Structure formats: structure tokens, C-alpha cells
């Protein structure tokens, strides 16, 4: 398994690690059984992501995709952040080994979950923003991120 230099950079020096105590939105996806959990904290001001932090339990790719995803959404309006797909995260990292693509899916889902949490708290409907209901319920049958 060979990771790109970008992946190794984001793994060894992950950006935005930590938590935000008074976060406006928190999203957690994945489960320990599968071997990866991502938790993203957002600080949002007038629908603009002013700060973002993450915590991840997982492999090198899971850490690197979390780090890259937080970089990509920082400072962006939430509607723009929601357009960032897992493919964009993979491209920004100069690619991922095929078995690690699911980590990028998880990163995309974590961002969506955190924004969704914010919207709900604002009394808004995440579906109006094109967010499908967060579907990770901790069982492996609920999503296809590890191909089961």
C-alpha cells in the first residue's frame, strides 16, 4: 500500500485536529467495528464556516481525508461546503489507494452530518440544502462505505 506524499503530509501533520467547545454543528459518522470514526465540529456565522475541527479514529487515509476535508470547507459558505464531494477530497490528496476510497466517503458524510446538525439547530430542514438523512446508524448494513 502506497500513500501519496500529500496523504502522508496530512497524516503526519493533520490540520484542524481538536474539538470546538461551543460548536454550532457536530457530525459523527462511521463506527469502531469498521475501524474508522470521524467527528467534525463546525463554528458557523451567517451560514459561513468560520472554524472547523475534527477527531478521527482510523487509518492513515481516514486521518488524511478528515484533515483535507476540513481544509476544503474552512471559510466557505455551507452551500458551497456541501458541494465538496469525496472525489474532490481524493483529488486534493493526489489520490488514494482503491481500498481507501471509503475513507473519503466518510469524510464527505462527516461534513454533511455536521452541517445537517447545524441546520436542524437553526430550525431549518437539511433536505432543503440537498442533504440526505445521515444514514450511519453504527451497523455495517446501513451504508456501502466498506463495501459490505
Amino acid at each position, binding site marked *: 500500500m502506497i500513500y501519496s506524499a500529500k496523504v502522508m503530509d496530512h497524516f*503526519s501533520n493533520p490540520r484542524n485536529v481538536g474539538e470546538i467547545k461551543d460548536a454550532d454543528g457536530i457530525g459523527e459518522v462511521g463506527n469502531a467495528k469498521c475501524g474508522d470514526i470521524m467527528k467534525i465540529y463546525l463554528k458557523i456565522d451567517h451560514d459561513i464556516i468560520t472554524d472547523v475541527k475534527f477527531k478521527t479514529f482510523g487509518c492513515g487515509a481516514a486521518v488524511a481525508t478528515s484533515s483535507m476535508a476540513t481544509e476544503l470547507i474552512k471559510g466557505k459558505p455551507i452551500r458551497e461546503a456541501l458541494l465538496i464531494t469525496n472525489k474532490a477530497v481524493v483529488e486534493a490528496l493526489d489520490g488514494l489507494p482503491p481500498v481507501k476510497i471509503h475513507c473519503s466517503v466518510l469524510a464527505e458524510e462527516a461534513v454533511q452530518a455536521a452541517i445537517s446538525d447545524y441546520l436542524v439547530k437553526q430550525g431549518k430542514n437539511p433536505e432543503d440544502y440537498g442533504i440526505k438523512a445521515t444514514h450511519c446508524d453504527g451497523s455495517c448494513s446501513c451504508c456501502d462505505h466498506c463495501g*459490505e
Partner: protein
Amino acid sequence: MFVYADNAATTRIDPDVVKAMMPAFDELYGNPSTIYSKGREAREQVELAREKVAKAINCLPREIYFTSCGTESDNWAIRGIAEHYAAKKGKHIISTNIEHHAVLETLKAMEKEGYRVTLLPVNEEGFVTARQVEEAICPDTVLITVMTANNEIGSIQPIREIAAVAKEHNVFFHTDAVQAVGHIPVDVQDLGVDLLSLSGHKFHAPKGIGALYVRRGILPDNLLYGGGQERRKRPGTENIPGILAIGAAIEKATANLERDMAHVSMLRDRLLNGIRQTIPHCKINTPTHDCLPGTVNVSIKYIEGESMLLMLDMNGICATSGSACASGDLDPSHVLLAIGLPHEVAHGSVRFSFCAENTVEEIDYILEVLPKIAARLREMSPLWENVNK
């Protein structure tokens, strides 16, 4: 500092072994099956190496067949015995759920061909008992195959007792001793096994050479068909460099066995004690008794193995993990699940495996680096934050 701590995966080729191989890359190029002096020279060296392997495990030279690797030896032993004796005895095979893939995947393939396989579960330390084996024997059991020592956690199975049970019930017994030979005493007479697999690169010979011990009088079917090499049982022109190497390597490993075992187990205990003292919330997966001297397997809870390996590598330390991510599988190691670890704890496992070349300084370096890595990854882990709360 560079620390190679993955000797259960493979070992460095010993310089003395390289020296022993050199003639095969020079004047010793004759085909051992030929009649002229150039071929006879090679034949002599092949037989000398065979004697060394035989002496190391206490059998006759003609009971040793050279193969390409441990996997081939396992495949051949299992298929060869089952296929030769199935008509007479039956199609039931007994094994364990912690075998190497070379055994498990062979058995899985054979199940599709109509064989019935019982995989005995191990206890939480990674052991099966002779009694479990005995209770699993059926009238149609043709073969029992149980590994001597486990590659991931190091548990050493009660091979002598299982062999006695097999003999009593007139069932053939094969053991995959790939992790054991060269690391602990292995005497086929004392153990009473019928077939035994071994692999050169686990004890400082190069990759590409293995052997199968087959007790005289037992006739496994061939896996390969071709020329008359290895007494017609394993065709293919002999791998002379590999054969010279395995002879030299096993001779050296056996000569130094007691000294090396003492050194390596001292290193293991130092690492285990150090980990216990410096990293909270660990689960030691290596058994406390009947364990390979050089194997340390530990789960560091709330973090994931591949991340740990990457960080160890950045610090010059080579180790391995049973996490799904490290293996590219969906599930973590079948061995760690078999000893009852929850998936998330198995994902956080790391294995260090040592040989005589490792030093106390290297252990102390691992103990300096590993707690920092554990702390750093835990700091990043959402699971750890719940523990602290």
C-alpha cells in the same frame, strides 16, 4: 534508529547463509539430476543440505522434501494426504480457527470439493486442547492439521498431545511449524507428527525455499507432476541456492537455539513490561505461557493499527498490525477475533517480533517512541475523549 521488529513476517538473510549460497551462483550450476561430475557435485550439496534439515528436526534425510515455500508445504501436506487416503478413510479434516491462510484457504477450497472441515475454536489465550481434537474425530476423519505456533500471537499448541490422540485414532497429523522451526526446539520424533511444514525465510534463509517432512511409509499424493526430483514426490529442477541456504540457516539456528531463545525472550519481556508500565488501556494478546520467545502482540485501545504502523515507520520501526486497514481486508485479523477481541480492539493491535539480532537498545527505543505515538493518536481519537469523560 532503524529497528526491524517484524521477524515473524520474514527475516534478514544471515551473512553466513549468503556465503553458503554463493557456490550456486558460480561453479555449482549443474543439474543435480544429471550423471556427469558437474551434476553430481550439485547433487552432493543438495543431499548435504537435506541432512542438515533432517538433523535439525530429528528425522531421516529421505523424510525431507524441498518445496518452494511454507505455503506449498501446507497445501501439499493437506491435499496430498486427503486425496490419497480419502477413499479409504473419509473426507473429514480437523483444524483450528487460527491457522495461517495457507491452511485455512486450502481447507476452504477443499470444502467446495466435498470435504467436510471442522475448525476448532481456540480459547482466549489462543490455545486448542488435545481433548477438543479428540472430541471432533469422526469415523471419516482423514487428517488433523494444527499449527505448532501461531504467527500473530505466538501461542504454541500442545502438538505432542494432539499427535498422541491422532495416533490413537489412526488419523494422520500435519503441523504447520513455519513459525516454530529455528525459534523453538522442534523434534518430529518427540512430537510424533506425521507431516510438518517449514519455511527458510523465517530463520534467515532467503524467500523461495521451504520443506515438508513426511514420515516414512506415508504417501501423500503429489501436488505437482513432472520429473523425478525429490524421489518423484516434488518435481521441478532443484532450487540449489535456496537449498544450500536453508541447510546453512537451519544448522546455525539450531546450534544457537538455546542462547537465542534466552536473548529473544528477555527482549520480549522487557518490551511487554515497558508497555504495561507506560501505556494505559492496553490488552496484551500474547499468551503468558507456551508462547514463541520473540512475539509481542498488544492492542492499544481507542486507536487504529495502521496509523500506529505509519508512525512507527516514520520513526524507523518496522512492525505489523492485525487491523483491517493494515491488511486491506474488511475484517481485522481472524486470529484476534478468534481469541475473542471485539473488532475495535483488534483494529488497534500491533505485533513486534524479534530475532537474535535485535538488541536491548532497540527495545528501549521502541519504548521511547510507542507511548508517544499512542498518546498522539489518542489525542486525535473521538473514542479516547469518551474514555476521559
